[in-house]
């Protein structure tokens, strides 16, 4: 039985004759040190080019919506120089303010450093690094939630419910945060973090269990769980968890439950970011270095073979959805305990949905997810400044993010655009057919 695919055709033919050493194979001793997961160049190239292409097309959108540029192009044949100048000006001010909004100005940072070392006054320095810290602040929940969706992908599950799990996690953390009073921080803070994780995990476990027990598709069920979470939070914020007063918000959490901030206000950067990096490392270990992760990956890559090998598909589905939901819950926890200190309506700003994009862009690998989350956090926080300085609506960022995702999800477009030959890339299993 031969396959019609191109590559398998001569595989056995290209293997060496019996007894002959495999050509190019390293000596046995060196081989033992070699490790499997050496990602190909394309693994990095495609997402990078996707981001680049997204920025370029985003630039075109900025141009055609810029009245000055459009006006200059009306006179293009009379004054082509003016038109091109307008193009340059528009793009430079948009992306320039995006950059400075994300990273701050290098000059200000250097001056701040000089002042600090010369005079000992940290104020200018803190002001200069404010944009960077805001980018990291925005990245923190993205890392958690992106890891959550990525873990789901590893098991072949498409968790669209990160948004709902984020909400529930935030509420869980807030509850532990304001309800427990008079507890030392080294007990209160871990409990509050755990509260968010457990709440998210339980919220994720429900669609996981439904899938395992009834075959109900997780895409449908996680979407529905989102709506339940939104309305549940509305009710909680207007009832049982409402703070005294008119606004539908929870009470402020106790100071002992706050994730410690590293600088004085207005810098909101806190320990949550480092917690996110630590959790990313932990997830990497869990997925790639443990039997638990081996099972999750096997079930995701080939559930039939996993079953043949004696793994329980249902157990892995429930476990993975719990992990996934727990990570999304941590995203909510980091936002409440680190930034907002209370939960209000419309708390999330779509972190859970962006997380899907981040997991895709990061190829579901923890390191990739961290990088993608940093990118999204940076874009998000820079966009605010771009809006105020260059007058470019913040929505342009959503367009760029959307384009990046399209290109990552359909790499054929990028390969075609940049004339890259298809490599043997790991296929990302998003989800199997309905009810599979």
């Amino acid at each position, binding site marked *: *039985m*031969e*396959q*019609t695919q*191109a*590559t*398998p*055709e*001569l*595989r*056995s*033919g*290209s*293997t*060496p004759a*019996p007894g002959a050493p*495999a050509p*190019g*194979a*390293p000596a*046995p001793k060196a*081989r*033992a040190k*070699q*490790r*499997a997961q*050496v990602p190909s160049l394309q693994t990095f190239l495609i997402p990078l080019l996707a981001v680049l292409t997204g920025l370029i097309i985003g630039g075109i959108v900025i141009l055609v919506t810029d009245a000055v540029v459009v006006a200059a192009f009306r006179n293009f044949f009379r004054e082509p120089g003016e038109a091109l100048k307008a193009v340059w000006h528009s793009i430079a001010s948009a992306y320039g303010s995006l950059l400075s909004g994300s990273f701050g100005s290098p000059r200000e940072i250097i001056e701040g450093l000089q002042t600090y070392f010369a005079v000992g006054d940290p104020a200018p320095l803190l002001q200069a690094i404010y944009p960077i810290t805001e980018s990291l602040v925005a990245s923190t929940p993205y890392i958690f939630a992106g890891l959550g969706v990525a873990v789901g992908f590893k098991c072949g599950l498409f968790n669209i419910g990160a948004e709902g799990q984020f909400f529930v996690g935030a509420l869980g953390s807030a509850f532990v945060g304001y309800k427990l009073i008079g507890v030392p921080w080294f007990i209160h803070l871990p409990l509050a973090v755990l509260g968010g994780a457990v709440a998210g995990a339980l919220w994720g476990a429900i669609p996981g269990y439904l899938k395992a027990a009834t075959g109900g598709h997780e895409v449908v069920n996680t979407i529905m769980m989102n709506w339940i979470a939104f309305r549940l939070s509305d009710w909680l914020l207007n009832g049982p968890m409402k703070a005294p007063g008119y606004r539908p918000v929870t009470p402020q959490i106790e100071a002992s439950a706050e994730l410690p901030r590293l600088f004085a206000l207005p810098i909101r950067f806190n320990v949550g970011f480092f917690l996110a990096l630590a959790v990313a490392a932990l997830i990497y270990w869990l997925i790639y*270095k*443990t*039997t*638990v992760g*081996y099972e999750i*990956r*096997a079930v995701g*890559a*080939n559930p*039939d*073979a*996993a*079953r*043949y*090998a*004696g*793994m*329980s598909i249902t157990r892995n589905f429930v476990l993975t959805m719990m992990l996934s939901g727990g990570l999304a819950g941590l995203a909510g926890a980091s936002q409440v305990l680190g930034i907002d200190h209370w939960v209000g309506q419309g708390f999330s700003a779509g972190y859970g949905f962006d997380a899907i994009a981040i997991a895709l862009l990061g190829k579901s690998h923890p390191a990739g997810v961290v990088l993608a989350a940093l990118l999204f956090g940076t874009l998000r926080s820079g966009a605010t400044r771009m809006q105020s300085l260059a007058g470019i609506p913040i929505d342009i960022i959503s367009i760029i993010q959307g384009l990046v995702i399209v290109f990552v999800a359909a790499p054929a477009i990028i390969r075609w655009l940049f004339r890259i*030959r298809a490599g*043997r890339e*790991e*296929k990302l299993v998003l989800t199997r057919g309905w009810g599979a």
Partner: protein
Amino acid sequence: MTPVLELRGITKKFPGVLANDNINLTLEQGEIHALLGENGAGKTTLMNILYGLYKPDEGHISVRGQPVDIHVPNDAIARGIGMVHQHFMLVPVMTVTENVMLGVESTRGGAFLDREEAARRIEKLSEKYGLEVDPHTYIKDLPVGVQQRVEIIKVLYRQADILILDEPTAVLTPQEAEELFKILRSLTAQGKSIIFITHKLKEVMAIADRITVLRLGAVAGSVRPAETDPAKLAALMVGRDVNLVVSKKAATPGDVVLQVDDLHALDERGNLIVRGVSFDVRAGEVLGVAGVQGNGQTELVYALTGLRPPASGEIRILGEPLGRLTPRDILEKGVAHVPEDRQRHGLVLSFPVSDNLVLCTYYLPPFARGISLQEDAIISASQELVKQFDVRTPNVFVDVSTLSGGNQQKVIVAREFSRPIKLLIASQPTRGLDVGSIEYIHGRIIAKRDEGTAVLLVSSELDEILALADRIAVMYKGQIVEIVPAAGVNRKYLGLLMAGVKPAEAGAAVGVGAAEAEIERVF
């Protein structure tokens, strides 16, 4: 006379692989030209080039002396080239006529299907070539052999006179294969020319007028059957001498290891497909389950391995009833399973070779300590297994999907045979493999038997059953028709049982004298 088809200097490169290397092939009018080669020798690539699915890098094709360019399958069809694929492309819920006219519908008044016209043409073709197909039956009601004839009709209906048949006998019983050969003879007698792709030596000897052997993408030789014999062909195919006969001693059966009693099992759709099967397998013997695919063998194996619990009946391993054990419980009782569909059940294709080698033992020491995987232990054990089982792979870190079918199967065999096992369930263990790998895996199975393992071998290849089994159970429509000792069994008799003939009638039809002659031929 100009040949009907001529391929000159066809070369096709894939990244890193020379799939076809300067291949010349000439097909004369009215001949059956067998294209013989192992998997990966380049047969399918060559035919896909001829059929317009690939573009050759070099070389040219002429049909009846005219150079032609074939870019898409329609070009090939227009030149009278037709392909009968190994996997049928038929719609089961449609009639023969409807299937045949798909894509070339005859119409009346421009919009209405003219089934009668099509049916008349099908009847004419069927009569002319002795195909015996009723155009009005539904595909789902037809046996596999007849479905294949429908595929042939489809090609003839499109007025092909060069037919390419890709591994046509893979799904047929021996009798059906005989029938097919008769039809092919009748086609060539009336001027059609046939390229017959196969890796089965016996077939080419029986049917081909000429044989072209491919090896590693190049023509290794072109011979007439009269000038050669199976051993020489095998040597051409593999590039070395091949032992075609499995040498084995008589079995020394011990205690009963697997005992199956009145087993019933369901298929995917919940239909009862195994209906009351009882047998046992002893330590140190091979029980071969023969039968045409789809007679419940798959579901029998699923039931035995826990992949789909049986509907009723009892399974005992070493006297202990299985009850409702999970696949892992059964694995841990010392049952090894070489699954029928190696890519679906046997391997995680996107995992490296090393991870696939521990697929059933990853959670046990030394491969895991607590939940922490011990990579060094996994890698060194894998390297040992790869060496021991002669898996041809550059290293154990490449994805198992990059290996050839034969080497993928060796990965499974290495994994399953290296565990301490008492019962081996091997389902179609050599399907689609090349001669060299078959020889190797057969040897390993017999070695396991000689170590005292009970072996249940399920195969739809009668040759494989005859080569390995000590006792043979024939399965038909979910039941075991008969269990006979393999020694001295008559091949034709088994073929008749596989086709549903009652044992008594089959015995009468074959006769004792014929049986002995048959044994001569088989061994």
